[in-house]
Every structure is written in structure tokens, then in C-alpha cells.
């Protein structure tokens, strides 16, 4: 079963970090990615540009409206994700607990629905 592990943290904190600390975190993320590739959990992952780059799109009555910014303003922002393959929620929680994001922010674990095409 697939789970999406979404990493939420205060995105402003990254810019205020000394370069050495940024490098340390990046190193931990690369090591984590390698680790879950080896254990067979890894499906995919991406880091996201911060929310000022976000554009929210809606279509209402056939009309497209675009607005600046994320869908909701929150104290912590979605900064990236890992899509993983796990046996069950306990397995997924163990993977999420190893993610560096669980230490500098929090990781929301959501099961993926897989629809079958008729």
C-alpha cells in the first residue's frame, strides 16, 4: 500500500539557517532517501519551492480564476513529500519517523487511494 508523507515546516526558517546547517540537513535528506531506496520503501519524492511561488487555480462556471499564494495560509507549510510503499500504517510510521522532516517540522502520513480504471 502506498502512503504520501508530507513534510510540513516553517519555510522561513530555511533561509535564516547558516549554510553549514543547510548542508547538514540536505545531507540527512539524501541519506534518508538512499536508506528507503535500499529498504524498498521509496516510490518518489520532491522538494517544493516556497509558498510565495504558489498559484491557486479554480474553474467556476467555466471561468478560470488564478490567485496568488497557497490554497490556505498556515503556520507551517508543505515543503516536500515522499511517496512510499509500506506494508501497513505501522511500517509507514516507522519510515516517517526516520525522515529528517519529522525533526525540523512534522510529517503527515496519508494513505493513497488507487482507483482501478473500468
Amino acid at each position, binding site marked *: *500500500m502506498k502512503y504520501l508523507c508530507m513534510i510540513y515546516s516553517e519555510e522561513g526558517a530555511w533561509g535564516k539557517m547558516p549554510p553549514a546547517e543547510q548542508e547538514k540537513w540536505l545531507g540527512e535528506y539524501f541519506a534518508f532517501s538512499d536508506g528507503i531506496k535500499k529498504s524498498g520503501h521509496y516510490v518518489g519524492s520532491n522538494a517544493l519551492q516556497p509558498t510565495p511561488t504558489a498559484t491557486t487555480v479554480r474553474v467556476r462556471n467555466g471561468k478560470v480564476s488564478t490567485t496568488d499564494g497557497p490554497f490556505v495560509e498556515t503556520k507551517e507549510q508543505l515543503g516536500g513529500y515522499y511517496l512510499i510503499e509500506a*506494508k501497513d*500504517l*505501522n511500517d509507514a*510510521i516507522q519510515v516517517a519517523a526516520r525522515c529528517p522532516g519529522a525533526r525540523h517540522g512534522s510529517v503527515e502520513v496519508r*494513505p493513497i487511494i488507487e482507483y482501478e480504471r473500468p
Partner: protein
Amino acid sequence: MAEQVRHLVDAVYRSDSRRVLATLIRLLGDFDLAEEALHDAFAAAVERWPSDGVPGSPRAWLVSTGRFKAIDAMRRRARFDASVGELARRFDAAANDAKELEAGDGVEDDRLRLIFTCCHPALAPDAQIALTLREVCGLTTEEIAHAFLTPAPTLAQRIVRAKAKIRDARIPYVVPTHAALPERLDQVLRVIYLVFNEGYAASSGASLTRHDLSGEAIRLGRLLVELLPEPEAMGLLALMLLHESRRVARTSPTGELVLLADQDRSLWDRDQIAEGTALVERALSSRRIGPYTLEATDWVQIVGLYDVLERVDPTPVVELNRAVAVAMRDGPAAGLAIIDALLARGDLDDYHLAHSARADLCRRVGRTADARRSYQRALDLTRQEPERRFLERRLHELGLNV
């Protein structure tokens, strides 16, 4: 004969339905399917045991019948839905494994699997307790709602959502690994303690104690101590045994409440006291002491112990218990001040025991009119017959004193 069999089915339902359910959840992999199968199995027992005779192992018979009923139901549905047909074939293949149907140690583990699944940290704390009381102990939604001072529809919704999360997020039906066990145990103990309280002071009906629930909590406590001899689990079991030992003495032959000081001590169960005391000593001799061990110790240090318990488990009900202990130590006025502050916060306004405790303290400091008002409020809120009679008696006594 048919009448006798019916009584037997009832008895088996009371003693074994939760065990059968726990095993069916493992075999069928779904709470709702398992509940349906459980009821089908008992319906089949009522129908068939009078003519076929009672099976040698009723529990194994119920598990196997429930499973086949579930497979049948799925087959019927499969005519409309191919994916359900696949599921039914899978269960069918597994059904050949007769070992799983034996009522051995593995089946006892199912109850633990069920407990740990219901108490999974990915479920909201409220939902963990509600689900355990519903699924493991078979309490009705209304009983749980009363114990939690929560409206019944809110509670029903909580249970439905918890079951949906177990299914959709795939919370596994397992006993946690040894490394995770102590942490997961804490929540389980809390739940068992609440189950025990529900049995010890049942929330509605004519009888003050519902022995099967207290007994169930004690049985779960024993099973936990056996599986995981942690001081905390021993402390909880001791606490439950010491309370239970006084159960017979708590009500008079006419069903009236008897307070601790007035109880006939010859009615206390010596074996349970001995077992409970031995467990307290075992638990205290280890260095880790938790809230349940504290609550089981003697009255002498009880206020200090409630201070600790309040830190570990900061709920209004614990604060109320502490207030009563303070009243025992420092006199009724001191306890009354705490209860008044608690009620002013509004947390326990719907809790009959808060008002009856307040009434009792008011009575002891001579504030008769306040006492009468609080007894009346408690009387409006209580749903237990013996408590109702107790409160009416108190009100009557106060009336004569005016």
C-alpha cells in the same frame, strides 16, 4: 430443553462473544464484516443447538460458523461485484486452515491484537477509548457516552470514524513489536481502567455494579500482566482487585449504597485483597511506579498520591477524587473549595458524582440548604437506581433536620 439451550447461548454470548469477535476480525480483516458474522453465528446457534446438540467447543463452533456465514454473504454479493468474489475466494482458501479455529493461546492473542488496534496512537485518544469499550468489551454506545459525559451521537460518530481509519489507513491487526510495547501499553492500561470503572459503577440500570465488566477488565489486566509483567500493568490489576474485593460490601441486601466506613468487612474478599496486596508489593519493589499503582495504595498518603495522579492524568474526574481526599485529610471545607472551583469551570456540571460529593461536604459543614440543592441536582442527573435511592434518602434526612 430449548429453554435451557437458549440460556446457554446467552451465557456463551456474555462470556465469549468478544473473544469470538476478536478472532473473526483477524480472519475477515474488517470490523463491520466481523460484527455481522458474529451476530449471524449466534443466530445460527439459537436455531441449531436445540436440535443438533451443543458443540464440544462452542467458541470454535461460533468462529467457524461466523466465518462461513461471512463467506456466504460475500458470495451472494459477489454476483453483483467481481472484486468481492475475489475476497471470498481468498477467505475460502484460508478457511481450510483448521488450526486457526482452535480455541488455544493464539485465540487469546486475538483479544490483545484487538486491544492494541483499538488503542493505536494513530486514532484520536477519545476514539481509542470509545472503540475499545465498544469492540473489546461490548458496551453500548449509550453506556460509553454516559461514562464520558458526551452526547451519544457524537460518540457513535467517533466510533464510525475510527473504524474507517483502521480500514483506510491500514492500521495492522497486530500486537506491537517488543520495542514499541511499553509505550503502547500506557494507553491500553488507561482504557482498561475506564472499563473497570464502568463495571464498578455502571452508568445506568437498577444494579450498581455490573460484575461481568469489572471481571472482564480484571481478566484483561491479568492477561496483560502475563504477557508483559510491567509494574504499571501489575499496579492497575492490583487497583482493580482491591476495589473489586469490596464489591459485595458496597451494597446492602436491599440494594442500597453502603459507604466505605459503614461496610461489613467480613464481606470483603480476602483472596482478592491478598492477591492485590501482593501485586502492589511486586509493583512497588520495582522502581517504575505509575498512576494506577499510586491509586491502589493506602489512604494515608492518598492526597499526595492524587497530586501525582493529577499530573500524570490531568482530568476533571481525577481532580474531583483529589478534592474528596483533601476533604478527608483537611476537613470538608477544604475539599468543598476545590469542588466549587471545579464546578465553576463548568467541566463537571453534568456529572452527578460531582454534585453528590459537593452535597455531602455541604452537609458536613452544616450548609443544609446548599446540600439539599446539590443532592437534588445529582438526583436529576443520575441514572442508577441504587444511587437514586441513596440520594433520596439523604434528601429526606436533610428535610427532617430543617
